[in-house]
């Protein structure tokens, strides 16, 4: 029994709420009044100098949102959100169009430094000589700076805050915004459509291979603010882009709402690779605070032979409700989903994907690794469906869950629907704990229990880590170790 006591003490000492990114940046910020009504929607729209059509679009979404009900089907449990008790807009004050990094509030830059985002070129290149990353940082809903814009512009790539794209490229925004995730898609997407503050806009012209990885960093800073960013990525015929997204939030007692929408459009022969590392504040060990992450992500493989690949490492958030999906509309298009979802403490994760096969010869692949520890619940919820006309559709799904500890739960809820006789779907799922033999093997060779667990878990998720761009893979590996701290015993 002594060993058990020892473990309990050690876990207590480590404390799952030792959140590495829990600090508050004191920057003057401009907030809209609390609550949500048409005036707030107009206020947000006016703040961004949006054209009338955009304001109408938002108002329409808001009116529809009023008629909708919050979904309850996910395996997550949280107190009712009072949507009137939130701030829907908060902008760092010094954002009157920074032209270069020098104009950005130094306090803000220090925040990023603490986060370890390689905002400056030399920082990025340190150690990784050949790769370049363009960063669009969204700080409490407003894009602060976009690096590398000139170089991207040379290639014809448009990479800017969406609020800017509304002005500079209204025809593209009008054409594509809401075309993958319709305004009324679901409760949170509709809310986002009404109040979205900012996000990234990417357009890759035909035949262009984006010269660098594009990246965005989200951080919720202001107290009681929801973050509603909106990302729109269009890869025109024959183009390629890899996009990275990272998220953090400071430590707070109250729960913070995050309802983002990401829309991807891949035309003929285009490929989009979207990677996410999400480590929002997960709440403390008693489940107090933390981010509610209700995100709608969807990609539309519109053209023939297009490809969309989602890779995600989910370690943060008190509640995750996220299903990056692919609509495989173009013939021979391909969708991929690679996911690592780690939950510890009292986190609740309900995540997965949807692969909707509509076109002929479409293929998809789902690899999902769920790890639950502490008193968390981790659910994989996914759908694979073949439409009547999806001749020769193929899917392979593999979802594995690992349980660490007696008080956590791991659940798998796949929906596999085939309406075409030529479709071939394979699905396999396993749930188990870390094998005693493997642990013994490692500890016998001098590793501590914790090191051994981290090693085995890293092996367990290797299939997915391999899909991440290199800069992210290293960060993700570290994150996995941090997230599992205190879970072994």
């Amino acid at each position: 029994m002594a060993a058990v006591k020892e473990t309990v003490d050690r876990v207590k000492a480590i404390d799952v709420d030792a959140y590495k990114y829990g600090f508050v940046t004191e920057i003057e910020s401009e907030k809209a009044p609390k609550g949500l009504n048409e005036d707030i929607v107009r206020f947000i729209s006016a703040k961004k100098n949006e054209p009338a059509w955009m304001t109408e679009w938002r108002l329409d979404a808001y009116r529809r949102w009023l008629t909708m009900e919050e979904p309850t089907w996910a395996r997550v449990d949280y107190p009712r959100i009072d949507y009137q008790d939130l701030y829907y807009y908060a902008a760092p004050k010094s954002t009157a169009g920074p032209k270069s990094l020098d104009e950005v509030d130094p306090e803000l830059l220090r925040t990023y430094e603490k986060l370890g985002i390689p905002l400056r070129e030399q920082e990025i290149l340190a150690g990784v000589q050949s790769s370049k990353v363009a960063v669009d940082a969204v700080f409490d809903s407003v894009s602060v700076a976009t690096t590398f814009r000139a170089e991207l512009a040379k290639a014809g790539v448009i990479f800017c805050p969406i609020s800017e794209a509304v002005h500079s490229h209204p025809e593209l925004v009008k054409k594509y915004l809401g075309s993958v995730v319709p305004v009324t898609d679901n409760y949170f997407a509709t809310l986002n459509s009404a109040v979205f503050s900012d996000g990234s806009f990417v357009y890759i012209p035909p035949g262009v291979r984006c010269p660098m990885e594009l990246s965005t960093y989200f951080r919720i800073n202001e107290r009681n603010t929801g973050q509603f960013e909106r990302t729109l990525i269009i890869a025109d015929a024959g183009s390629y882009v890899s996009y990275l997204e990272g998220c953090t939030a400071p430590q707070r007692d109250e729960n913070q709402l995050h309802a983002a929408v990401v829309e991807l459009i891949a035309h003929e022969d285009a490929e989009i690779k979207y990677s996410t590392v999400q480590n929002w504040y997960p709440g403390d060990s008693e489940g107090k605070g933390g981010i509610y992450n209700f995100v709608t992500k969807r990609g539309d493989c519109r053209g023939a032979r297009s490809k969309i690949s989602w890779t995600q490492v989910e370690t943060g958030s008190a509640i995750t409700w996220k299903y990056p999906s692919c609509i495989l509309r173009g013939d021979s298009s391909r969708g991929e989903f690679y996911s690592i979802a780690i939950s510890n403490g009292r986190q609740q994760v309900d995540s997965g994907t949807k692969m909707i096969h509509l076109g002929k010869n479409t293929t998809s692949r789902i690899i999902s690794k769920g790890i639950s520890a502490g008193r968390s619940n981790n659910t994989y919820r996914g759908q694979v469906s073949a439409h009547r006309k999806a001749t020769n559709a193929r899917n392979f799904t593999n979802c594995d869950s690992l349980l660490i500890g007696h008080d956590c739960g791991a659940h798998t809820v796949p929906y596999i629907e085939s309406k075409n006789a030529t479709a071939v779907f394979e699905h396999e799922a396993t749930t188990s704990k870390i094998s005693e033999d493997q642990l013994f093997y490692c500890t016998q060779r001098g590793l501590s229990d914790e090191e051994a667990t981290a090693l085995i878990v890293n092996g367990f998720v290797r299939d997915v880590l391999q899909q991440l761009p290199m800069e992210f893979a290293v960060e993700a590996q570290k994150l996995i170790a941090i997230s599992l701290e205190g879970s072994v015993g």
Partner: protein
Amino acid sequence: MNKPLPIRTRTEAEEALVATFDSASSNLRGASDLRAAAMARFVKSGLPDRRVESWHYTDLRSILRRAAPVRPGDFMPVERARAGLASAEAQTHAARIVMLDGIYRPDLSDLALLPAGVTVASLADALAEGDAEALGALTGEGQGADDPVVSLNTALMQDGVIVRVAAGVEAARPIAIANIMSGGAPHAAFVRSLVMVGDGAKLRLTETTAACDESETQVNEALVLRIGDNARVDYVSRVVRQGAGAISLHTLLATLGAGSEFNGFSFNPGVGVDRRQMFVRLNGRNSTLNLGGLSLLRGRQHADSTLVVDHAVPDCRSREFFRYILDDESTGVFQGKVVVRQHAQKTDGAMKSQAIMLGDGASMNNKPELEIFADDVVCGHGATVGQLDDDQIFYLQARGIPKPEAESLLLEAFAYEALELIADEQLRARFIEQTGEWLAARGAA
């Protein structure tokens, strides 16, 4: 999670079912409180539609357009029933219990072969007499209490049998329960049976649902099965001969005692709409559960197997294996949920569902679910949907076997693998024969 659905208008069928309860309550004997409560639940829920998660793929609300009436008790087409019964026979050596249009009929039953230590009684009689044990056992362990079809069954159950197998009795002969629908005009029956198997006892049980003709019958059956410690039950349920418009709803509520073994199999060689829901709870340590099924569907037939396997205690093992062959525009549904509770350590669970799609218009919906709260477990599931393997067909063709025969051969093999789970040789042989007939009919078409 189960939030009330928005208020909606009642369908014609829902109105009719409520009316049936109101008008028939004088004929429905006993358990009046239980019935009233169940009806109240049904009034609240209505018939399940796509928005009810467990009925997502079988939209009963739109399938059941008109609720057929229940036959009055004095309607006795005995001769027809005997003929129908003969076609439903699969075991020659079994003790036979017959229900006609939902009423237990000792006159049609043959209890001479009933093993010693096994008793059979009418459920309606027991309820009328206020048999406390029967009443207590009737709802199993409350599994499926929210299910509208179970609620309907509880509210409207006409009759059924109570089979008791005394502790330690090893029944040498199987018991075959047949639910026969006399047919003619569309009509419905609500049957509830209770089988209690004592500690250390052994029982082979077959349940057949059949109709005397191709009429649109609507059967709602529920079987409550209590398996004592170290007991073993081999159970086969099957449907035979029903009209294209027939709807067959079957619920199994089973509990397993420590060290017990339950082998269940359901065979569906094709009826209109068939939904089998199985709620099985492993209540005692070291118990073993094997569930299997085979559905052969064509036309616009629809077969749904929905399982909830609840591992409530440690050290249990469960296996589920279901196969479907889907021709024409038929639809197969498999929903399997394995729940492992927090203390059910050392659970070993594996679930598999496989479907071969032959028809261009066929659909298969799979939902294998795992809900796991214990960490020291090994659980997995697999689901596949596809066509016959071209390579395998080519292999056989290269050896001089014509394509249609090659297909039949492969389908037969696919079906047999599932049928191998049946321990009773006579039954297995009968099902193999039926599978052959089904395949032959396919070739002929």
